[in-house]
């Protein structure tokens, strides 16, 4: 049990596997839901924005809206799902924490890993399908797009460690996040292009951590907008910074988890 202080590869493997199975335990369609839910969202959003609001993204025709939305919406789903689920990961595993000396980080990180595994798989599937349908997605951009997930995962892991450790003490956090995350989604250029926003507010969007990812995924896969190496560097620094803060905070608070669970 002491050995568990240094998680073995097997242990990580088992935890992520268990986390994946937990998500779909008892559901007949299993992993299908992970793909179906953002697909449905994509269909509804496309319909509402294109047919109901009759909205147009400058420089895009109606048919291009679906890929425009898809390449930003899938990473967002991974981001939101990763943060939200990991937030309650310590609290939900209270029974395990009270009985076995599990490395606490493992519970949070395996939850994040599971979210990304599911949604990256969905992302790849949707990108390939859209590319085959001839919607202007460049398949050559798939590999760089997957690399862009690296800082995103680091960012989410950091946020997850912060939220999960705070959630143990303040249970309101997961409730608040449920409200805050949609707000963050609407304040990121996911459904629209930043150019459609009144100029006075455009720079404010840089404060939203997801703005960079939404725009860069589009630049890489659709050639919509330009890829900016400087912004990538900033995003990496932010991601590593958040991860470090998360690590320090988590280490500070984890000896006391059991007392408050």
């Amino acid at each position, binding site marked *: 049990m002491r050995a568990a202080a240094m998680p073995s590869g097997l242990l990580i493997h088992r935890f992520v596997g268990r986390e994946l199975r937990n998500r779909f335990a008892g559901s007949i369609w299993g992993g299908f839901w992970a793909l179906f839910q953002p697909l449905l969202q994509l269909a509804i959003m496309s319909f509402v924005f294109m047919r109901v609001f009759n909205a147009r993204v400058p420089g895009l025709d109606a048919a291009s809206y679906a890929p425009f939305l898809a390449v930003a919406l899938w990473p967002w789903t991974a981001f939101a799902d990763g943060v939200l689920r990991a937030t309650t990961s310590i609290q939900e595993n209270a029974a395990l924490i009270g*009985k*076995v000396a599990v490395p606490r980080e493992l519970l949070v990180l395996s939850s994040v890993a599971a979210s990304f595994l599911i949604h990256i798989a969905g992302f790849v599937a949707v990108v390939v399908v859209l590319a085959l349908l001839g919607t202007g997605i460049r398949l050559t951009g798939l590999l760089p797009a997957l690399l862009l997930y690296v800082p995103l995962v680091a960012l989410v892991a950091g946020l997850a460690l912060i939220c999960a450790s705070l959630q143990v003490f303040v249970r309101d956090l997961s409730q608040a996040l449920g409200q805050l995350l949609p707000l963050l989604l609407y304040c990121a250029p996911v459904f629209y292009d930043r150019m459609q926003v009144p100029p006075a507010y455009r720079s404010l969007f840089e404060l939203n951590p997801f703005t960079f990812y939404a725009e860069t995924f589009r630049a890489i896969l659709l050639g919509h907008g330009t890829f900016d190496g400087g912004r990538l560097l900033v995003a990496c620094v932010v991601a590593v910074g958040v991860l470090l803060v998360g690590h320090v905070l988590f280490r500070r*608070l984890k000896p006391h988890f059991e007392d408050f669970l």
Partner: protein
Amino acid sequence: MSALLVRAEGLGKSYPKVYRSRDRLRALGRLLLNGANPDSIGVLRDIDLEVRRGESLGLIGENGAGKSTLLKLITGVLTPSTGRVTVNGEIGALLELGAGFHPEYTGRDNVAMSAALHGLGAAQLRERLPQIIEFADIGQYIDEPVKHYSSGMIVRLGFAVVAALKPDLLITDEVLAVGDESFQKKCVKWMQDYLEGGGTLLLVSHSMYHIQKLCRRACWLRGGEIVMQGDVFDVTQAYLAYHEKKSAPAVSSDTNVTAGLEFSVSAVELNGQDSETPLMLQWGDAVRVATRIRSRDGRTPSLAIGIVRVDGTPVYGVTTDMDGTAPTRLSDHEYACELEFEALALLPGSYTVRVHSMDPEGVRLFDTVERTFIVRGTSRESGLVRLPHRWNGAHAVDGAA
């Protein structure tokens, strides 16, 4: 003796007082600012404990004495508030029920998870899985979700995993209490073999029988502090005596009630000793149970005397009525009689004598008084009593005792 396996110095644990949600926020602020948390309830204080390799230590104490907390600190599930604990070896722990099993998964999946948590590799698991399943002996339930298990089955599986790990230090918390008779025996047998093979055991149990059977040393916790530690017989005896004293005031305040009974037991002496501390005996000693009965209306009472092992297993019971005798009349309302066991065949352990006063017909039971005695010794025979026996067609082996 050999190397130190567990060492606790000034170990203490306190839980924060959190009654309202606001307290949680304040506690979080304190932890972030200076790491201290002054508003707390102490559950363990100044525990100094050493366990050496090959030792067996029993932890005893009332509910809430801090036994489980101490085990959790040693296994690293809890972080101590004060002091420190060091462990030099692999621990296999079975804390409370469940051992961290996930209710939705099958027994087999949970075994795999549990083994990985204990640092067992995939190949080692494959090798030991049949052994685990055989030890747990829960049949086809191994492929059922754990939520359908009875508490006994969960413990069986948990113990089977820990047994397969062969840890340096085995920690079990009230595990035996849940299993059925045959599983208890299997566990006790396994633990005895494990101890003989050089294993180290830390056992929490409310069964003094198990503690005495498995442990050489015992440690008694009360209110988060160590009251006494040392030889298992001395500690368990003191602990039982404490319990009797604790229940004594309740009995004495009942005197009015007992005086109102038609037949009440007014005195019981074991070998002339009327105190409530357990009587110490050697195997084969004689036991005399001298009793006095008060009869309110002067009718001759009958008397039932029984012996039960400390865990409640009945050993023997008899009434005056069955044997065709009756207590001797001392005065109008006082009767006396003595039951003697010439050479008590009971094997080492703690036993309770129960004296019941009954109506002359031996039908209704009116009053009960209990006395405890301990048969000391280190016999390795199993069961409750030594039955007269002889081996036929066998021959003595040189060097055998």
